């Protein structure tokens, strides 16, 4: 009888079609997950893999992405809460266990070496294959500004299904048919608004209720949470010092390890000797173990500070140099210049048709960008415990890859490795890497039963990063009445290529970074790109906005040079070339209008504009600078973004400001240089960042173009700032700066 009643009630919610745009799987329930999956504790009931309810009336959302400041925990929780009709003040988040349903499919698709402009069967096939691969590999990762794009449909669907289950549970509890019930404001209510049950009162009534067909998702017009500036869920803990970052992990009996790496890239420990003792005692004071880790030496003890001091003063380490122990920056630039002249490109792409006759006038320019370190505020760390199985606590952007690397390093099957992701004290791409995990595992294996927290000093962080590639570009524009051709040859290593080898063991492809070779949005009569991809000993990685971070500088500054050569206003010139791109045009015009483009500025001041589409969003920025006594001051930045549907406008604004400041630090100060095969910089004293006093006033304008596709927001704010500032410097001084960082002296 009960079954019949249940079926009848459930039947009331069926019949609506499933809106599943964006799913990459044959079976959309593949990504929903079983209700027992999400660490269901006593007093809680799982509704599916993404959400559970608790008797204290909490709605707990699974957030399998790294919270590194970009607000993903808040944004993801909003997606579920919206469809579930939860109150925002009852929503909490938890890190779910590593499982295939929590994979990020979008990040693989985004990593394909196609321009977003490209379509066709090959591209479609590759997208489909990457989607399937995401399913097979189960990559749980945070990066590429993909999180919300990836979760948009699955997590709203999870919330909608949870809501329907709660309606059914309330119907069973109260005897009121589902058709007479609605979910609103964190409770199941009669249609007249009377509360039938708070969500928390349904914990014991969900039972094994199930739903075969997901209900339709809300149209945007009905959103209550999405599109509005909800408060961030992570802030209360962060203002009282209670948020647990990787460095704050404390396990019983925990030891601390400091690491010193070989100064030259690819170097190793050749040997070491304790200082001041001819016959080593069993253990130096406070040091439990000395461990050779990949590329360095770790000292493990009861105090990190003491272990660090031991590496400074207590041990002589001899190093085996890497393959290029004499490499310096000047040599590397010469090498790149040679490649620029002679090397065959790894990728050539043309747009438009080449003119038949050679043009008259010619404009040439060479642009440079240096290696950059990430320097997140929290230095690299990982805590590992080996007890036969491995347990890791780590601020990381990819628990899947951490688990794989740890399992390989320990010779264990992956199911014997558990990875806990803590809050990240900044990521910016650095925490996609697994190097520190390998070191922590190496230490933990030597000290079974004892948790070991490996922590790097800031000096190790700056000298042993996976850097934003140094890069070089040579532009040639020709003119025949108007602009005739635009040709670019660029040289730079490929982070994706290196990362595949380094983190996963994939063979290198020698292909350029996909987002370093995206097509320009501008309607050039003829455009040709040749990308040269050198190998090299310097490790390169994903630095916030990756290839866009330097190619936007190359592209948007040279575009200004072309405009000025044609005696056109840089904004007006861009408008002409974007006539067929209404979204780009609206973003550009918004930034220019809000910045007061064209209004007079005092002598020594100037405005510069730049536009970049990246990670599915379009961003334009106008920088206003003041140059006095060869000192450059960026006074204000006006930013416009079209990121499609907006989940949380407060976070979009915060991410634009964040991207601007991050990019400005690099544009004004960022430069990693090499000498004797090693990095010359060491700390914030010689690798500085923008501080409060030199942070510009910033205004962010969100442009609604009505586009249906979501864009990312974590990275797209970074690319336009360097060219906007360089273009403003030209407007202020007449000096064209073609190298980063921007130096007037």
């Amino acid at each position: 009888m009960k079954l019949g009643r249940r079926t009848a009630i459930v039947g009331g919610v069926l019949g609506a079609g499933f809106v599943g745009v964006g799913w990459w799987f044959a079976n959309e329930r593949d990504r929903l997950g079983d209700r027992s999956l999400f660490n269901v504790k006593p007093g809680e009931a799982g509704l599916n893999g993404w959400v559970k309810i608790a008797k204290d009336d909490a709605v707990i959302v699974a957030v399998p992405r790294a919270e590194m400041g970009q607000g993903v925990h808040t944004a993801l929780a909003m997606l579920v809460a919206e469809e579930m009709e939860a109150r925002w003040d009852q929503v909490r988040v938890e890190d779910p266990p590593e499982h295939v349903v929590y994979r990020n499919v979008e990040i693989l698709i985004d990593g394909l070496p196609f321009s977003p402009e490209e379509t066709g069967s090959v591209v479609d096939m590759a997208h489909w294959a990457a989607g399937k691969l995401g399913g097979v590999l189960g990559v749980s990762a945070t990066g590429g500004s993909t999180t919300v794009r990836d979760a948009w449909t699955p997590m709203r669907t999870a919330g909608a299904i949870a809501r329907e289950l709660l309606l059914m549970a309330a119907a069973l509890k109260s005897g009121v048919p589902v058709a007479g019930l609605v979910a609103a404001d964190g409770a199941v209510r009669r249609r007249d608004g009377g509360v039938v049950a708070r969500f928390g009162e349904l914990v014991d009534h969900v039972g094994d209720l199930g739903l075969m067909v997901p209900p339709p998702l809300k149209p945007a017009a009905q959103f209550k949470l999405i599109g509005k500036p909800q408060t961030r869920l992570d802030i209360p803990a962060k203002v009282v010092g209670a948020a647990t970052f990787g460095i704050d992990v404390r396990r019983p009996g925990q030891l601390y390890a400091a690491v010193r790496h070989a100064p030259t890239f690819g170097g190793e420990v050749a040997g070491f000797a304790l200082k001041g003792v001819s016959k080593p005692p069993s253990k130096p004071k406070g040091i439990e173990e000395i461990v050779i880790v990949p590329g360095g030496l770790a000292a493990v003890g009861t105090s990190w500070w003491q272990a660090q001091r031991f590496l400074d003063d207590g041990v002589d380490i001899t190093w085996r140099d890497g393959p290029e122990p004499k490499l310096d920056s000047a040599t590397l630039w010469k090498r790149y210049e040679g490649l620029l002249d002679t090397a065959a490109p790894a990728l050539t792409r043309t747009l438009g048709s080449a003119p038949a006759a050679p043009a008259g006038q010619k404009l040439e320019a060479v642009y440079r960008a240096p290696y950059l370190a990430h320097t997140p505020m929290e230095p690299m760390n990982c805590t590992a415990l080996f007890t036969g199985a491995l347990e890791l606590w780590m601020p990381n952007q990819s628990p899947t890859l951490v688990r794989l690397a740890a399992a390989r390093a320990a010779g264990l099957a992956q199911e014997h490795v558990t990875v806990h992701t803590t809050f990240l004290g900044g990521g910016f791409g650095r925490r996609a890497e697994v190097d520190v995990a390998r070191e922590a595992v190496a230490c933990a294996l030597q000290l079974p039963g004892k948790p070991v927290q490996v922590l790097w000093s800031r000096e190790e962080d700056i000298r042993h990063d996976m850097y934003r590639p140094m890069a070089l570009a040579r532009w040639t524009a020709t003119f025949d009445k108007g602009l005739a051709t635009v040709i670019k040859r660029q040289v730079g290593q490929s982070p994706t290529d290196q990362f595949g080898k380094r983190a996963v063991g994939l063979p290198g492809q020698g292909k350029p970074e996909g987002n370093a070779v995206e097509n320009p949005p501008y309607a050039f009569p003829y455009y040709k790109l040749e990308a040269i991809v050198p190998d090299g000993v310097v490790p390169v990685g994903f630095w916030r906005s990756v290839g866009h971070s330097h190619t936007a500088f190359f592209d948007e500054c040279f575009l200004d040079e072309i405009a000025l050569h044609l005696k056109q206003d840089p904004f007006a010139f861009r408008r002409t070339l974007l006539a067929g791109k209404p979204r780009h045009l609206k973003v550009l015009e918004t930034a220019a209008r809000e910045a007061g483009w064209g209004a007079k500025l005092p002598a020594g001041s100037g405005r510069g504009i730049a536009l970049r589409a990246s990670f599915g969003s379009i961003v334009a920025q106008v920088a206003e600078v003041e140059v006095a006594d060869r000192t450059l001051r960026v006074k204000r930045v006006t930013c416009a973004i079209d990121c499609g549907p907006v989940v949380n406008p407060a976070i979009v604004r915060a991410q634009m400001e964040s991207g601007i400041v991050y990019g400005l630090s690099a544009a004004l100060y960022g430069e990693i240089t090499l000498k004797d095969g090693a990095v010359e910089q060491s700390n914030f004293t010689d690798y500085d960042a923008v501080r409060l006093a030199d942070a510009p006033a910033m205004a962010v304008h969100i442009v609604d173009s009505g586009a249906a596709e979501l864009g990312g927001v974590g990275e797209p704010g970074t690319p336009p700032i360097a060219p906007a500032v360089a273009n403003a410097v030209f407007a202020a001084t007449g000096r064209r700066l073609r190298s980063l960082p921007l130096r007037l002296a």
Partner: protein
Amino acid sequence: MIVTVNGTRHAVDVPADKPLLWVLREDLDITGPKFGCGVAACGACTVHLDGAAVRSCSLPASAAADKAVVTIEGLGAGQLHPVQRAWIEEQVPQCGYCQPGFIMATAALLKAKPKPTDKEIDDALTNICRCGTYGALRRAVHRAAALMGGP
């Protein structure tokens, strides 16, 4: 050595030159103050020593003996300090790692200068935030000043 942190006296057996930051983090498990650079360049480790903001990564613990140390955990003495309230109201933190240092530096500033100018704020808050929360942070400093200024 005796150190008094957030009103509690602790006897610690550490080398005299061990920095206060590491005594707090390793010997007392007070992890709100963060390690960022180790050379007093970033301010993530900022705590109060007898009410003044100090960068604890570069201050030997012996210098804190017999003085009152206050960390982010003890700033509000069981409640939210107005600076913390302002930080929530302006939604300042992103990754949040540097924020305890900024909050401690701000609380010390506002004690000395209840209505600071932007220039005074710039001069006092020289910490680094790599997430670039500076816009919201400046608004929060002014808001905290207003919250502390009376009803």
